[in-house]
C-alpha cells in the first residue's frame, strides 16, 4: 500500500503536547466506497497524528468521512469500503517497535484492537448487548483480550464501574434498565477495560442532553489524566471541541481542511469553512451577534470537483481555488508552525471582513441568516 502518486509529501505535523513521537500516525490514508455509480472517495489522502496523552478532535458534518477515516485506520471497515493507500503507524508503550496497522495479520489485529486501541461507539443504545447484563459484557471484553484469572476479572468489572461513577449494584443491570448517560458510561468503562493506549470516541455524547454531556466529558478528561491514554474525539460539534481538545482537525468532503490547537482555531481560523463553522452556533454568552451558517451542501464525492471541495460554498473563492493542491501548509500569519491549512489564498485578516457573497447557490439550500 503506497501513498497516492502525484502528491507531494506533507511535512510531518508534530504535536504540541509531547516531545516524543505520535502513538498513532495516519499518513496519506485514502478510503473509497465501491458503489455501482462509481467510487465514493470518502477519505482522500489524510494525514493526522495523535501524541501520547493528547486529545485530538476530529470535526466535520455528516458524510465528511470523519468516522470512515478513523474506522479505516483501525481496519474496521467492511466492503464496499476499501483502503486504497496510506499507512497507519501504531507505536504504543507496550509494543516493541512501531507497526503498520494496515499490514497487520488478523492475529496481530486481534491483539491491537481493544488492548491498544479501544473505541467508544456513537449510540450506546445499540452498541450494548440487550440480553447481557453489564457485568457479563465487561467480562466478555476482559476475557477476550486479557489473560487474567476469573476472580480478578470480576473484581476488575467492579472497579471499572467505580471508575466511571456507576454504583456497583448496577453490575447486574441490563442495558434497558440504565439511563442514556449511564449506558454511555458503561460504554466508556468497556473501552477502558483493557487499559488501552488510544481511545477513539465517536460522538459519545451526541444523544445526551447538555448537563449529562458535560458531566461525562469532564469524567473522560479526568480518566485521561489518571490513566494517561490518548483520545481521538469525533464529533460534528466544533464548540465542544474548542473546550475539550488540544488539537482540532477540521474535515470536509473526505479531506482535512485545517489543523490547529483549539485556541489558534478559535482565535484565528484560517480556512473559510472553519470560520463558517465557528459562526454557525448561537452563543449563549456575550453579546448577540449575527449568525450566518454555511449555505449550500457538501459535494458529491463520486465525482469531486477539482481543487478545493469547499469552493461552491465558499464566500471568498476565486478561480485559483479550482486548481489548488489540497496540501496542509503552515498558516503564514500564525506563530504556531503546527497550525496548518489547506487554503493558501485566504488570510485570517481577510476572514475578519464579510465575504463578497457566495459564488453560487446550489438548489434547495439557500443562504441562511438569523437576524437578531
Amino acid at each position, binding site marked *: 500500500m503506497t501513498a497516492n502518486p502525484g502528491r507531494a509529501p506533507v511535512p510531518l505535523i508534530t504535536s504540541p503536547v509531547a516531545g516524543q513521537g505520535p502513538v498513532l500516525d495516519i499518513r496519506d490514508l485514502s478510503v473509497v466506497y465501491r458503489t455501482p455509480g462509481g467510487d465514493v472517495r470518502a477519505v482522500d489522502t489524510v494525514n493526522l497524528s495523535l501524541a501520547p496523552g493528547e*486529545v485530538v478532535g476530529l470535526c466535520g*458534518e*455528516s458524510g465528511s468521512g470523519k468516522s470512515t477515516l478513523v474506522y479505516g485506520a483501525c481496519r474496521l471497515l467492511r466492503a464496499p469500503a476499501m483502503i486504497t493507500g496510506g499507512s497507519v503507524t501504531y507505536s504504543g508503550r507496550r509494543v516493541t517497535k512501531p507497526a503498520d496497522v494496515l499490514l497487520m495479520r488478523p492475529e496481530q489485529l486481534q491483539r491491537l484492537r481493544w488492548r491498544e486501541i479501544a473505541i467508544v461507539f456513537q449510540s450506546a443504545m445499540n452498541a450494548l448487548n440487550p440480553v447481557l447484563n453489564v457485568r457479563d459484557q465487561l467480562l466478555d471484553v476482559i476475557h477476550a483480550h486479557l489473560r487474567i484469572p476469573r476472580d480478578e476479572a470480576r473484581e476488575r468489572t467492579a472497579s471499572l464501574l467505580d471508575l466511571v*461513577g*456507576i*454504583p456497583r449494584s448496577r453490575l447486574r443491570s441490563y442495558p434497558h434498565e440504565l*439511563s*442514556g448517560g*449511564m449506558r454511555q458510561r458503561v460504554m466508556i468503562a468497556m473501552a477502558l477495560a483493557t487499559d488501552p493506549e488510544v481511545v477513539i470516541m465517536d460522538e459519545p455524547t451526541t444523544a*445526551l*442532553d*447538555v*448537563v*449529562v*454531556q*458535560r*458531566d461525562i*466529558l*469532564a469524567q473522560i*478528561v*479526568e480518566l485521561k*489524566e489518571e490513566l494517561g491514554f490518548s483520545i481521538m474525539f469525533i464529533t*460534528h*460539534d*466544533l*464548540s*465542544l471541541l*474548542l*473546550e*475539550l481538545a488540544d488539537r482540532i482537525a477540521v474535515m470536509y468532503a473526505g479531506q482535512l481542511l485545517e489543523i490547529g490547537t*483549539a*485556541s489558534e482555531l*478559535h482565535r484565528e481560523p484560517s480556512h473559510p469553512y472553519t470560520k*463558517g*463553522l*465557528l459562526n*454557525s*452556533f*448561537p*452563543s*449563549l*454568552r*456575550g453579546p*448577540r451577534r449575527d*449568525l*450566518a*451558517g*454555511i*449555505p449550500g*451542501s457538501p459535494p458529491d464525492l463520486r465525482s469531486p470537483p477539482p481543487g478545493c471541495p469547499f469552493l461552491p460554498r465558499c464566500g471568498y473563492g476565486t478561480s485559483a481555488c479550482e486548481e489548488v493542491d489540497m496540501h496542509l501548509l503552515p498558516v503564514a500569519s500564525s506563530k504556531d508552525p503546527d497550525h496548518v491549512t489547506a487554503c493558501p489564498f485566504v488570510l485570517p485578516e481577510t476572514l475578519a471582513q464579510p465575504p463578497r457573497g457566495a459564488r453560487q447557490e446550489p*438548489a*434547495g*439550500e*439557500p*443562504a*441562511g*441568516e*438569523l*437576524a*437578531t
Partner: protein
Amino acid sequence: MTEQATMLTSAAAARGPLAMEAISVSKDFRIGRGQTLHAVRDVSFNLYRGAVVALVGESGSGKSTAARLLAGQERLTSGAIKLDGKPVDVSSHRDFRHYKSQVQYVFQDPFASLNPVHTVRYHLERPVKLHRGRVSDMEAELIALMEQVHLTPARQFLAKYPHELSGGQRQRVSFARALAARPSVLLADEPVSMLDVSIRLEMLSLLDDLRKRFSLAMLYITHDIASARYFADEVLVMYAGEIVERGPAEEVTQQPAHPYTQLLVASAPDPDNLGSTLRRGANGTRRQGARRTRTPERVATAGCPFSPRCPLAEDRCREEDPTLLPITATRGAACWRLDAAAPELVPGPPGGGHITEI
C-alpha cells in the same frame, strides 16, 4: 401556580394576538405496580401569533409530552387547552381533524418521520387533501409549498423519495407538510437537533421566516438553550414536568434565576471560555453551580423536584413545592431560595422573611 402564572405577562404577548392557551395542564402516566409518573405538572403558558415560545429542558423533563398534549395526541389528566379562546374538544374524529388543521406538529427525526415508500409528493398531497378538501390546482399548491421551504426546483424534488434527500432537505419536507394544512399554531419538537451544526442555523432561520410570513404561533422545544436565546421570544424552562423558570429569552439566558437554569446555562459548551473548564478536568467543572449527582434518583417525590441536585436546597425545599414567584412583570421562577440563587434579581427575602445563609 395558576394564580401566579396568570399574574405574569408572557414576553411573547407583544408580538400578536393570543392563539393558544394551556391552563394548568397536567398529564400522568400509569407505569405499572400502581405507580404514577407525573410527566407534566400544572403547566400554564400561552402561544401568540407571530411569536416563538421555547420550551427548554433535559430529556425526560416532559417537554415533548407537553407538546403532544397541545397537539391533541394525548388526553389531559387535568387542566384545559384553549385555541382562539375556545376550549379544545377533540373527542370526535371530525373535531380532531379540524383541530389538526389549525395545530400542526414537526417531529425531531427527519429520518423517521417520512414514510420511506412514498414520494415527497405523496407526503404533501395528503395533508392538502385531508385538511383543505378539493383544491382546484393541486400542482400549483404543491409547488408553492415547496417554494415556501426553499426546495427548488420543486417538480424535481416532488418526485423524490426520502432516502434521496439529505437530512436538511427532509426536514424542509416536514415543514412543508406541516404548512400544507395552513395551521395557525406550529409545534416544533427539536426540529434541528438531528441536523448538522452547519445547517441548523439555516433551518432555524427558515422557521423564523415562516413564522413571520404566516404569523404562526410557534412552540419551539429544545434542549439547546443557546438556540432558544436567538430564536425565541419567551423561554420556559422545564424540569421534572414543571415550569421552573419563565421569562424573556435574553433575560433568562443571560441572568438565569433558578438554580436549574443556572446549571443548564453552565453546561452549554462555551467556546469563548477556552480551556477554563473541561480541559482542566474535574476541578474546573465542579467548581460551582448545582451538584451533578451520579445517582439515578434525580427527582424528589416531595417538595421541589430539583432539591436533590440543588446546592441551595434546605428543609423547606424538600417539603414544599414552590410555585412560580414573579420576579418582574414578565418573569418568574419556582424557587424558595431565589434570594440566594439570584441575589441581583431578588434583593430582599421574598415574602416569608427568609434569611440567607450564603
